[in-house]
């Protein structure tokens, strides 16, 4: 972490998450972190490194390999008055905890007629692009966003990595936070006084008039990079960061599309049944008559992610693909 001029400092996404956890644990003794290798190993992505020394093994709690068991235990602990942060190493392993997340956490409040809410926060690493192959590369955040009863966050910026966790901990209901593992090393500015941020609204990260790109997580930066390139060709792209995938803030992206009349959704999920499909459908329903052209989607190719670098790159949405698609969309019916 390096301090820069004025009231801003620079730190990595990883440090931002770590600070958010530390801060929460200092502020509220009910908060604790639980998951595989969060303690003695230092966290599989080194997010929790050093926290064991600071808080001890009760509150930085290493678990056995038992995703259903410890996720369910986190849900139970939340019911019992604690504010657990459960770390599931990657979203892929959440498939082993899907029962507890969906059959328990998501429905207890409802089934009990409002009596029992579940204030658990579940953090999961997500995303492809690191050549770790099919079983370690999925982006399931959009998929989980289908489930009523949970909230799904996808912080992209350092500021959101820091602020959304705290807001999630204050939320009375189960919140899943998907952290794209490609972002952990990314540096970004953070106000020294930075605090909690809302988890209700999408944000326009770049203004533009010609087309709206809607994205989130690591893809957001690909969209922003593409926008820079397109600006040189005189195409002004507006970029919306969804931030929260469930519940969706459609007002923000519908307003943007109403201004630009064109939209592209960039999403690391597989195309069929993607979150991008939902965004497209919402625009269909809420901004159809504003559209000058059909909404387009750029998603991951419908293939389990291959190990080979050239194939994996071809499978994932990339800057060049965004640029080419936008040019076609804007050029075609300008």
């Amino acid at each position, binding site marked *: 972490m390096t301090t820069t001029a004025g009231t801003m400092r620079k730190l990595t996404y990883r440090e931002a998450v770590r600070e958010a956890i530390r801060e929460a644990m200092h502020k509220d003794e009910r908060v604790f972190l639980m998951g595989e290798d969060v303690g003695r190993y230092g966290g599989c992505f080194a997010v929790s490194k050093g926290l064991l020394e600071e808080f001890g093994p009760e509150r930085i709690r290493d678990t056995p390999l038992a995703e259903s068991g410890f996720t369910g235990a986190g849900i139970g602990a939340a019911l019992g008055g604690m504010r657990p942060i459960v770390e599931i190493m990657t979203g892929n392993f959440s498939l082993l905890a899907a029962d507890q997340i969906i059959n328990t956490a998501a429905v207890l409040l409802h089934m009990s007629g*409002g009596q029992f809410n579940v204030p658990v926060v579940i953090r999961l690493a997500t995303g492809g692009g690191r050549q770790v192959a099919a079983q370690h590369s999925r982006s399931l955040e959009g998929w989980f966003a289908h489930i009523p009863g949970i909230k799904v966050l996808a912080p992209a910026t350092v500021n959101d990595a820091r602020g959304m966790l705290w807001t999630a901990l204050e939320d009375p209901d189960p919140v899943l936070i998907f952290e794209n593992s490609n972002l952990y090393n990314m540096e970004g500015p953070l106000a020294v006084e930075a605090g909690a941020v809302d988890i209700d609204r999408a944000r326009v990260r770049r203004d533009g008039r010609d087309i709206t790109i809607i994205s989130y997580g690591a893809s957001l930066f690909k969209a922003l990079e593409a926008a820079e390139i397109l600006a040189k060709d005189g195409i002004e792209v507006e970029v919306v960061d969804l931030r929260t995938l469930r519940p969706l803030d459609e007002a923000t992206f519908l307003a943007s599309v109403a201004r630009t009349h064109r939209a592209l959704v960039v999403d690391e999920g597989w195309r069929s049944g993607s979150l991008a499909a939902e965004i497209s459908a919402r625009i269909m329903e809420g901004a159809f008559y504003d559209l000058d052209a059909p909404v387009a989607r750029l998603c991951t190719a419908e293939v389990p992610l291959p190990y080979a670098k050239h194939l994996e790159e071809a499978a994932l949405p990339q800057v060049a693909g965004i640029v080419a698609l936008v040019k076609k969309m804007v050029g075609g019916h300008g």
Partner: protein
Amino acid sequence: MTPRKSAKTTAAPVEREHGLHLLRSMVRIRRFEDKCAELYTATKIRGFLHLYDGEEAVAVGVLEALTADDAVVATYREHGHALVRGVAAGAILAEMYGRQEGCSRGRGGSMHLFDARTRFYGGNAIVGGGLPLAVGLALADTMQQKRRVTCCFFGDGAVAEGEFHESLNLAALWRLPVLFVCENNLYAMGTALRYAQAATDLAARAASYGMAAAAVDGMDVLAVEAAAHQAAAAIRAGEGPQFLECRTYRFRAHSMYDAELYRTRAEVEQWKQRCPIASFTERLRGAGLVSDGDLEAIEAEVAREINEAVAFAEAGSLEPVEDLTRFVYSERRLP
């Protein structure tokens, strides 16, 4: 660690008042379940309905060992547990009627009874799903230095599930105050235990996790009570989780859809000879502790309670349809 084998049946006499109390509790369950069956046939109750007839001694005996502060996690076969734990019969029945006066506002039905006041955490219809939850409740207590017990009921069928394994290991590893109560009624739906488990001694299996485990005659309310008291005391003394296998039998079908192809009438009849209510009544009578008058009084009292419950449910109201999407997310922030 080897299982404590069948905690021996108490031959010692029970205090009259306590004996009557246990008997009354079991009778309340039996009559309540009978009424549910009747109301199901009358289509007042819908969905899945799983009754507890024959297993009353388990819920009654075990719950005696808990205090008001303790927590209960149960299954979809949980009317009896809720009743004995102190959830009003009317609120339970109204739940099955789908009324907003129900203990889950009519949103849960028979399988999802909940009650915050008595720390009754459901009513879980995913077999094995309640175990991790119980582990977590106990973890919260431990971290908050609260000396409470979380009591988790589940069936013999749940023992095959991975969540059983993960939960028992976690509880033992962290020495959490969980009382695991396996209601071994020999069948999971139509699958007999011997077709589900390579090793059918469930207490022994539990002991392999390094926790104290005992098997007890689940048709004997005093034996269950004694074993539960012992286990709860061990938990309160900080000895970590305890496992209690209650060997019992369900007299009725698994649910209202079950054609009972998988067991013989003769087998059911044989078990009915060991009815926990009849046998306990005989024991009390033999010891001169109850009279016919007592029994009549209990039946009358229970009948009144159930009639009132039916009236309460019948008089219940429907939640407005406009409220459909309530309780998906909380309506207020937390403290």
